[in-house]
């Protein structure tokens, strides 16, 4: 059964005010297109969960979608801080619930395995364990060792952007795998957006790359360039210029609001966004795409690309 719908239909049907939402992707394959659609539909009161909120949650926070942010590292990767996030936290405008990276992905893993919590050997002697009452301890019934625990995280909806999917939602992802598989298995509903929609038999030729089976997926959206300005290995490079530019945009609430009007609220969909980016910029990012050996051989040689300008991150 085909679950192919537009981004607008997918969000309208499966994301509601007050939902706990997980947009997957660790700097790679971040579902910006679906996040922008949530902004356009004026969703409110969301609990936004991501290991790295990244620019997409900075934008959603600025647009007023978020009541709470659950995260583990809230920076602009390779650039600096997230300024809309920072303002919201400093003014008390959003609630935060914070973990370490291991803690946050373990929360998804626990939910994905149907467990209420996972024991971990981290968090000890940190102020985070004191500040977040959800981080607790348990004594191992076998060894007597003291373990830190984190509770399962069950998102109402997980959103994944992948390289290839079929109409039923079987989804293939490769390169940096992040936390997408855990997020999908942890969530009540899953929306998949994909660079390419292919026939099921194409996916069955290479089932190792399938991270989510179609029967867990509620909606599939064909969304080329759906992860811009983040990367999609094999399709386009990170738009590093934009990540750098965001630092200045997000420092200034007026400029940020104008950016949202121009690039999100004033556009009908991702196609309009790609047109506004312009063929030249898109082409340059596609030329800079990192492709794996098999893809490179098929395309007649490796692609390169070295966008310049990133400075040392905060860590």
């Amino acid at each position, binding site marked *: 059964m085909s679950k192919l719908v537009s981004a607008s239909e997918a969000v309208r049907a499966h994301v509601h005010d007050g939902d706990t939402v997980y947009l997957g992707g*660790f*700097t*790679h394959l971040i579902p910006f297109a679906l996040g922008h659609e949530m902004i356009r539909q004026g969703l409110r009161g969301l609990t936004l969960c991501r*290991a*790295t909120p990244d620019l997409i949650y900075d934008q959603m926070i600025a647009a007023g979608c978020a009541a709470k942010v659950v*995260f*583990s*590292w*809230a*920076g602009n*990767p*390779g650039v600096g*801080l997230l300024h809309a996030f*920072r303002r919201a*936290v*400093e003014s*008390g405008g959003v609630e935060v619930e*914070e973990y*370490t*990276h*291991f*803690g946050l*992905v*373990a929360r*998804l*893993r626990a939910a994905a395995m149907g467990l209420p919590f996972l024991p971990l*050997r*981290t*968090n*000890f*002697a*940190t*102020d*985070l364990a004191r*500040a977040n009452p959800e981080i607790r301890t348990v004594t191992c019934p076998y060894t007597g060792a*003291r*373990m830190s625990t984190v509770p399962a995280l069950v998102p109402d909806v997980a959103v994944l952007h992948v390289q290839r999917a079929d109409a039923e939602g079987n989804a293939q992802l490769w*390169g*940096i*795998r*992040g*936390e997408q*598989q*855990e997020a999908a298995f942890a969530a009540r509903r899953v929306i998949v957006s994909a660079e390419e929609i292919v026939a099921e038999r194409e996916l069955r030729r290479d089932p190792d790359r399938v991270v989510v089976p179609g029967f867990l997926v509620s909606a599939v959206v064909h969304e080329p360039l759906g992860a811009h300005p983040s*990367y999609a*290995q094999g399709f386009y490079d*990170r738009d*590093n210029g934009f990540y750098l530019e965001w630092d200045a945009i997000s420092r200034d609430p007026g400029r940020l609001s104008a950016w949202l009007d121009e690039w999100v609220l004033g556009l009908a969909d991702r196609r309009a966004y790609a047109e506004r980016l312009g063929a030249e910029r898109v082409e340059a990012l596609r030329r800079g795409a*990192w*492709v*794996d*050996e098999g893809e490179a051989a098929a395309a007649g040689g490796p692609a*390169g690309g*070295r*966008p*310049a300008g990133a400075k*040392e*991150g*905060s*860590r």
Partner: protein
Amino acid sequence: MSGGYSPEEMMVVAAARRLRDGERVFVGVGLPNLACNLAKRLHAPGIEMIYESGVVGANPSRLPLSIGDPALALGARQVCSMFDVFALYLQRGLVDVGFLGAAQIDRWGNLNSTVIGAYDRPKVRMAGSGGAADIALLARRVFILLRHESRRFVESVDFITSPGHPGGPGSMAAQGRLGGGPEVVITDLGELGFDTSGEMVLTSLHPGVTVADVRARTGWDLRVAGDVATASPPSEEELSALRALDVGGLYL
């Protein structure tokens, strides 16, 4: 720039010299990444670079723009999920060295990269732990890389994002720490170790730096080793390899 190299270059070279061939190193982007790549090209070709994005044995053809850069994935030994890299590699005890940085450090090596001010209503909200606390508790040895400034080297950190040696190394093991915690703090002025009580001690100066320089930029009464050493300046080989890595001044 003094004597043909910058203080940051000396810092990266000092970090690279401490890495041993064959070690598995949990790396961040920025200066630690440069230090690892430098060591790999000089005395430690067998270093295995591991990134929290799930990349094991990276062999990047460019300096990564972020920790999830596909340039890290291609040509790597393995790419696994984020959960797996923390669980199967870091928590399993397979990581020899982890690198950390921060906005603040105190005399026990506690690091803060979370907030300036109170946690509930911070004056400045920073990025937070990411993998930092996990690395500080689970890597066998931890190297801290920081610019030496009095606003960073403070009497008391505003928030303990990752623990150093409060109460001494023994008490941390009793609390559940698997790894050895911070072994060295490498700055643009010198290197600092930790004594048996867990307190930071100045052990080595970079060329041209005095003990007074370091004390002036440290926010507490810093202990100094009786036999404080002076590091040798970067060799021609180290400098040219480093500059070849950081083409265009991406990090330095």
